[in-house]
């Protein structure tokens, strides 16, 4: 026919925060073919992580800036299970609080990003305004806005003071009405739902086949949430995974919105549980052995495999990041949609290219 046009979408593109290239084949503006082109962000992190296990908790944060704490938690949990130790309860609770804070920032970023991708500038701004509250909170707790550098193997190295706990409580109560307002907008806005409902549908079956994880799979009706394993302090709090059945952009968006509210619940549940005590255990000797560690990052199941042979350098470290699974499933969603929906669909899986490419 010769009617199809091919255009590059990315690596540098207004809709993407990160370099991802989707080469789209368009018939007029209908997408008939999509080729995912990854690897712009491949730095060789697995090699760098394996060089010195004592420094790798900092490097592992730099795999991804949006879910940095989850990365270092997964890494530290792996080392801890190699050593065979349990982190003190206070350390685990602090980890949980920080992970949920990070989930809040990540989800608010993703939500703002979706709003931006459909040209809803005001909503994007509002999401980021609320996100800024969490950002300043984590800045106060950890000393940095993005990379908290709080994790060490054996616990956390930075304690939260009683004022800090009060601060968290105060921020949460300040945030709750605002997020409720955002929830109202996201769920009710007509133009927004026109652009997200029924767009980029991923059926339950397809989600299983593509191995989707995290909010993307939960939006397609798969009630899978690694937090239910009870790592860190998740066994001490009550929550149930948020699941929707539609599998479209709207569902993915709303799952994230609901999870924001859930994160606040979890944080507020954690706060009264914090008792005085140590936050970390010192570990002796170099690690030796294998460990397989996983956490529920904002984008889904994050897996670290660590094999150590008793030297400073780890023998092998392997990451399987959630975005890798989710980004791949774009290939199932993009064909058949309109060019205008490509940014929305792409952003709705929350592609974290730095995770994907490592």
């Amino acid at each position, binding site marked *: 026919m010769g009617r199809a046009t091919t255009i590059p979408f990315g690596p540098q593109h207004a809709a993407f925060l990160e370099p991802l290239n989707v080469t789209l084949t368009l018939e007029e503006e209908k997408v008939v073919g999509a080729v995912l082109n990854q690897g712009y962000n491949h730095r060789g992190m697995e090699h760098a992580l394996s060089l010195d296990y004592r*420094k790798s908790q900092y490097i592992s944060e730099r795999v991804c800036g949006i879910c940095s704490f989850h990365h270092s938690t997964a890494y530290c949990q792996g080392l801890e299970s190699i050593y065979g130790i349990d982190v003190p309860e206070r350390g685990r609770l602090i980890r949980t609080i920080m992970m949920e804070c990070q989930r809040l920032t990540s989800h608010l970023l993703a939500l703002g990003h979706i709003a931006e991708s459909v040209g809803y500038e*005001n909503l994007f701004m509002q999401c980021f305004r609320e996100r800024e509250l969490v950002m*300043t909170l984590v800045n106060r707790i950890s*000393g940095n806005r993005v990379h908290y*550098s709080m994790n060490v193997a054996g616990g956390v*190295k930075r304690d939260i003071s009683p004022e800090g706990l009060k601060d968290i409580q105060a921020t949460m109560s300040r945030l709750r009405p605002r997020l409720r*307002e955002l929830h109202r907008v996201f769920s009710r806005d007509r133009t927004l739902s026109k652009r997200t409902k029924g767009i980029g549908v991923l059926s339950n079956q397809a989600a299983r086949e593509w191995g989707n994880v995290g909010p993307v799979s939960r939006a397609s009706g798969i009630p899978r949430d690694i937090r239910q394993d009870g790592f860190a302090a998740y066994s001490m709090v009550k929550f149930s995974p948020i699941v929707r059945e539609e599998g479209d952009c709207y569902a993915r968006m709303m799952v994230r919105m609901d999870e924001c509210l859930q994160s606040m619940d979890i944080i507020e549940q954690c706060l009264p549980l914090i008792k005085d005590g140590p936050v970390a255990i010192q570990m002796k000797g170099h690690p030796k052995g294998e460990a397989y560690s996983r956490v529920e990052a904002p984008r889904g199941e994050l897996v670290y495999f660590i094999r150590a042979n008793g030297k400073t350098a780890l023998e092998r470290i392997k990451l399987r990041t959630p975005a890798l699974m989710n980004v791949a499933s774009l290939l199932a969603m993009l064909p058949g949609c309109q060019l205008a929906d490509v940014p929305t669909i792409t952003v709705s899986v929350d592609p974290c290219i730095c995770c994907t490419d490592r």
Partner: protein
Amino acid sequence: MSMLTSSIKNLFSRPFTTRYPKVPADLPPGNRGRVLYDMSRCIFCRKCERSCPTVAIITDRDAKTQTVIRHRCIGCNTCVEVCPTETITMVQEYSRPDTAPTVNVFSLDLPRHEYRIEHLPRHDGRKKD
């Protein structure tokens, strides 16, 4: 159209925007800005140099200097933790941007927390191979 009410509300409320750089940044007390050396305490044990994940610290035992490459420091606080003599402190204020990667040289002849500013060489890029 759900944003209508909040748009109008925002229109008549004070903007959320900071006035930075007219007013100083609002930094929390525990902010990990940058590290400073109190050279009078330093024993040149090189623990900080070895612990640094990004090789931002260079200890020169002969010249009796500690060199911090500001544009390499990720502010992870490790050097502060490993220092046996509390030579190193983390302060709130962050390092400033510059027209070349900055190097701060702490030496014995300078007062506490003072440093000499040097620059790493700048590259001007390279042409396509």
